[in-house]
């Protein structure tokens, strides 16, 4: 049996994640009656992943404390997305106050093999990502609001995630989420 090249293997490995995620969303769509509940569940699962992922991220990436939200945006787009999903989203649409920006994903690896059926028009397929970002940032004392504003699955030309800085979390305890 010929050994696969490293690149090939990496590709296959990200397919493992993509397919597993797909199976999860499919299962949730069966388990819950409406799309809003699925979205909520995905966000919650993402949050739980995020609060753990941040540890892995800090250990691996060696980045220090960010001085402002712009720096945070850079770290998320250029290091975190690159590291875990192999893509580098672009950062655009800064609000004048510098507390809100958009991540533009040219291609979203989560939706590689996905088409949304008509009866799931309000499903936010990749909503897990929002939860992950929210959970991870909460662990570094930042409360943020994350949501999808454009999605290629819904016919938009790019996928856009909007992130809004809400406040610094002063004490070290995470806010009341399970």
């Amino acid at each position, binding site marked *: *049996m*010929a050994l*696969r090249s490293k690149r090939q*293997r*990496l590709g*296959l*490995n*990200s*397919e*493992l*994640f993509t*397919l*597993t*995620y*797909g*199976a*999860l969303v*499919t*299962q949730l769509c069966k*388990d819950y009656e409406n799309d809003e509940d699925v979205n909520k*569940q995905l966000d*919650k*699962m993402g949050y*739980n*992943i995020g609060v*753990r*992922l941040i540890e*892995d991220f800090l250990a*691996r990436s060696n980045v220090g404390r960010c001085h402002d939200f712009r720096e945070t945006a850079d770290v998320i787009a250029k290091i975190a997305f*690159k*590291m*875990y*999903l*192999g893509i580098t989203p672009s950062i655009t649409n800064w609000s004048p106050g510098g507390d809100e920006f958009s991540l533009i994903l040219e291609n979203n690896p989560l939706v590689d*093999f996905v088409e949304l059926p008509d009866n799931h028009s309000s499903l936010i397929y990749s909503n897990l990502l929002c939860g992950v970002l929210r959970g991870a940032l909460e662990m570094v004392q930042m409360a943020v609001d994350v949501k999808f504003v454009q999605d290629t699955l819904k016919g938009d030309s790019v996928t856009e995630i909007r992130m809004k800085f809400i406040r610094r979390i002063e004490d070290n305890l995470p806010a009341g989420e399970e």
Partner: protein
Amino acid sequence: MADEALFLLLHNEMVAGLYRAAEQGEGENGRCTTKLESMGFRVGQGLIERFTKDTARFKDELDIMKFICKDFWTTVFKKQIDNLRTNHQGIYVLQDNKFRLLTQMSAGKQYLEHAPKYLAFTCGLIRGGLSNLGIKSIVTAEVSSMPACKFQVMIQKM
């Protein structure tokens, strides 16, 4: 790319999420294992399709099992199966001495009773892979001392 961590976390959260939902009264516990298994099945089907795109045709059943133990396992779990045994009558036992999805909870016996939850997905993965190669099977798993575990594959003759 560090997407392995992402897969591990996703898998953990899938298990946790399903059981959390079951505890809140949406379906009973036994259904969770079935759900995890069927998710694995679907993923296995998809993966094997991509994997075998460029490989030569398999000689026989044993050849397929070896492929599962080597290429398939290495891609998914970063190591090969440590031991493959068969009775040559359709039963195969795949032993992994350091199973990736169990290593993080293997210090001591504390979580032994939870181990089966973390194996259901993989059982489905194997069954799905085999199924798309034309082999119908039943896959079960057993753990005696973590992180080692055994997967037993029973081939169903069609």
